[in-house]
């Protein structure tokens, strides 16, 4: 029984006794002495005993009743209070028992209902938050996918010039000429001044800020050159911190917009080298032609005018003028031929043409013919490697028009297609068996509008073919009983994969909007949280284990981690010619043969490029001391010094799991369930080590290791740190 209950019972009994005693006393005091003695005579021993017994029973009864009363009120009430506290603070799913007095049962029921309602509310809130997060994530992904697939090169930078979004087109444009250099300069978190001139960007920022202050909305353009001499046209637009850019707001709220500050900017880039070049060439061609023709005609005209106006001229002189006219005419012909040949490329059709696989065009045309004209179609012989430069829609219309007309006017039921490259063009034949057309009919069909063949376009076959810079005609093979329309169309350039392909499986990371929030690093690197820093995770393959005894690097692989994310699109990979013999034992480990290394760049070329790739990051490696020793030994020779901090995943794993016997890369990876990619290739091992490093970070945080300085200190203390190369 609880203290409260005990006290209550005691109090009740005490009260009763006091009341009874009081009553007895009052009675006794009230009585006359004679009545008192009479009462005393009555209260004999047995009767007093009975009276006491009665009082005791009464007290007990009262005690029990009070106890029972308390049991149905105080106890349950306390339990309800406890339950409420539990529900509110610790366990929203807890419910209280319905017990005790009916009123308290009602309270308990109400409490449970309230708890239920609260649970549902919490659940709904959680679901809403989850949905909102998912929607934001989806929109981000859509934006990223959109931007990454744009033909136009896009860069988004924060105010300091850190790149926080770029797309594949930008990577292709700015990445540099050779594949190895591609990843060096352009990457998330890197400075844009590595690829574009700082002065120009400053100037553009000033122009944008000026416009913001004046509430104007012109876009800022400039033309700049890249390191490898190409011309880029850059269009800059500001990103404002008010949450709304100037785009889209008609009359910006003057007060707010005036305070809007530039937090970043978007750059749209286009390579105008070729178009400027092409324009220059065309103009030059035309001018040359005009000037040359004027000169030649002048010579001819002067000569012939002389001859006609002076018939008395002597024969020798007339012969000379004749020769001049002949000579100039021939030279003019030659010049014309040359100009025609040069201009052949520039005589493009008026409408834009697209590169398309021949097979795809035929698929398109066949679908259209089968659907609209209702004929069956077949392919007779098609070159699968053939690419065309065509306006696919109007061509599909043209082919469907021919098919429909053949069906309507000559009951042709099937047409077949041939598509082959012939003499620098694509030859597309539309064949059928049966009634051949008369040539006049065919010529008429070439010039009739498509409306005669069920297509609603005013164009004719001749016009469409002319648009492509091609030709078309009709031919029949009477003995074989087939007839065909033959179209000569321009061949397209076979499309090599121009865009940079991702070297690793997985979607390349092209954006990181969190970098908007980054402020310039004011703390020393050691004070910075591990999750904030950028890392280059590196792995090397070497000829052997003894750097001091002449072993050399034969491969370097690295991948970047920015803002806690492994950037699969930003990698560095290079084989290195070690300029020495490669031992059998080492070939067995990494599988790199001397043949693979022949012709590769030497360490003098690769190391400076790698140094640029790893600029401004912390280096991470598995057994990093080994790799770093190799890099250090090359300092004198290449002039490249790696002075950034280094973290070793082997040591960090020992910090986190000191009791484990093995800290080999594969063991750690399996412990932390990281996929091993490309074991014993430099890039593969670097990616695995990067995955391990990311998994180690939260485990380190659990042990209180959160900053770079703390990690370095902890790593040094581990047993393995005693082994030095």
């Amino acid at each position, binding site marked *: 029984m609880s203290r409260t209950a005990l006290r209550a019972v005691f109090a009740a009994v005490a009260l009763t006794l006091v009341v009874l005693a009081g009553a007895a006393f009052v009675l006794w005091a009230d009585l006359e002495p004679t009545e008192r003695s009479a009462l005393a005579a009555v209260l004999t021993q047995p009767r007093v005993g009975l009276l006491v017994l009665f009082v005791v029973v009464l007290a007990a009864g009262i005690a029990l009743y009070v106890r029972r009363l308390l049991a149905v009120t105080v106890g349950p009430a306390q339990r309800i209070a406890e339950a409420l506290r539990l529900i509110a603070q610790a366990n929203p799913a807890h419910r209280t028992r319905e017990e005790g007095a009916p009123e308290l049962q009602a309270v308990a029921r109400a409490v449970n209902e309230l708890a239920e309602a609260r649970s549902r509310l919490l659940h709904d809130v959680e679901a809403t938050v989850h949905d909102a997060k998912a929607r934001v994530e989806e929109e981000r992904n859509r934006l990223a996918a959109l931007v990454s697939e744009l033909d136009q090169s896009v860069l988004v930078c924060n105010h300091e010039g850190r790149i926080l979004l770029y797309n594949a087109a930008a990577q292709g444009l700015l990445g540099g000429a050779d594949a190895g250099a591609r990843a060096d300069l352009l990457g998330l978190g890197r400075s844009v001044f590595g690829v574009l001139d700082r002065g120009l960007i400053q100037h553009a920022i000033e122009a944008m800020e000026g416009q913001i202050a004046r509430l104007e909305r012109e876009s800022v353009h400039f033309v700049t050159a890249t390191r490898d001499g190409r011309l880029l046209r850059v269009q800059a637009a500001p990103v404002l911190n008010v949450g709304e850019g100037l785009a889209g707001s008609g009359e910006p709220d003057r007060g707010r917009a005036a305070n809007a500050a530039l937090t970043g900017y978007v750059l749209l880039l286009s390579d105008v080298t070729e178009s400027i070049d092409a324009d220059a060439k065309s103009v030059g061609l035309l001018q040359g032609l005009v000037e040359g023709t004027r000169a030649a005609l002048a010579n001819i005209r002067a000569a012939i005018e002389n001859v006609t106006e002076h018939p008395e001229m002597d024969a020798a002189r007339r012969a000379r003028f004749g020769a001049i006219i002949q000579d100039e*005419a*021939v030279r*003019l*012909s030659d010049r*014309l031929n040359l100009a*025609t040949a040069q201009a*052949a490329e520039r005589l493009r059709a008026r409408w834009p043409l697209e590169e398309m696989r021949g097979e795809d065009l035929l698929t398109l045309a066949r679908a259209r013919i089968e659907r609209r004209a209702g004929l069956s179609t077949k392919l007779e012989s098609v070159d699968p490697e053939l690419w065309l430069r065509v306006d696919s829609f109007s061509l599909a219309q043209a082919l469907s028009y021919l098919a429909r007309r053949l069906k309507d006017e000559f009951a042709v039921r099937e047409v077949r297609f041939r598509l082959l490259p012939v*003499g*620098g*063009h694509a030859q597309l034949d539309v064949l059928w068996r049966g009634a051949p057309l008369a*040539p*006049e009919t065919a*010529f008429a069909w070439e010039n009739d509008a498509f409306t005669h063949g069920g297509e609603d376009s005013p164009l004719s076959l001749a016009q469409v073919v002319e648009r492509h*810079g*091609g*030709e078309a*005609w009709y*031919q029949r093979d009477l003995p074989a009983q087939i007839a065909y329309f*033959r179209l*000569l169309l321009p061949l397209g350039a076979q499309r090599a994969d121009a865009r940079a392909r991702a070297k690793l499986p997985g979607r390349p990371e092209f954006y990181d909007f969190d970098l908007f929030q980054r402020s310039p690093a004011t703390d020393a690197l050691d004070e910075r949280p591990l999750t904030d820093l950028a890392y280059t995770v590196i792995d090397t393959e070497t000829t052997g284990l003894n750097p001091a005894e002449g072993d050399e690097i034969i491969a370097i692989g690295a991948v970047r981690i920015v803002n806690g994310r492994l950037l699969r699109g930003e990698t560095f990979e290079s084989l290195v010619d070690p300029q020495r013999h490669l031992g059998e034992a080492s070939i067995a480990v990494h599988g790199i043969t001397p043949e693979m290394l022949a012709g590769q760049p030497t360490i003098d070329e690769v190391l400076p490029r790698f140094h640029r790739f790893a600029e401004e990051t912390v280096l991470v490696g598995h057994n990093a001391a080994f790799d770093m020793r190799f890099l250090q030994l090359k300092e004198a020779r290449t002039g490249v010094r790696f002075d950034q901090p280094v973290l070793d995943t082997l040591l960090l794993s020992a910090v986190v799991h000191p009791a484990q016997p093995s800290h080999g890369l594969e063991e750690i990876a399996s412990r932390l369930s990281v996929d091993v990619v490309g074991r014993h290739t430099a890039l593969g091992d670097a990616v695995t080590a990067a995955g391990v490093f990311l998994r180690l970070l939260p485990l380190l945080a659990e042990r209180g290791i959160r900053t770079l300085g703390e990690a370095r200190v902890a790593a040094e203390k581990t047993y393995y740190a005693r082994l030095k190369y």
Partner: protein
Amino acid sequence: MGKRVLIADDEPNIVASLEFLMEQAGFEVRVAANGEQALELAASFRPDLVLLDIMLPKRSGYEVCQRLKSDPATRDMKVVMVSAKGRDVEVAKGVELGADAYVVKPFSTRELVAKVREMLASP
């Protein structure tokens, strides 16, 4: 024996030179100023060789060539297309439609005469 040449071109300035050229070379010459006339003269004059421009009124040189080559009566006539249309697709079309030769303007008169002689010499 004298070979007959039909010149089909609507530009008088070139016709004058071609006619002069062919007559100097010893051929009998007739001139047609449009496609219809060319076909008529082909039937009546029965030339051994036709100097055929492409951009003719009434019917294009391509049409005339195809007609001549598909008609057994005129199939054996040699057709030399002489035209300012010089793109390779246009030359390909001319050849495929049956032209025995295709000369792009401007041309060398000496070479043209040599070619005509050569074509008329072979069967």
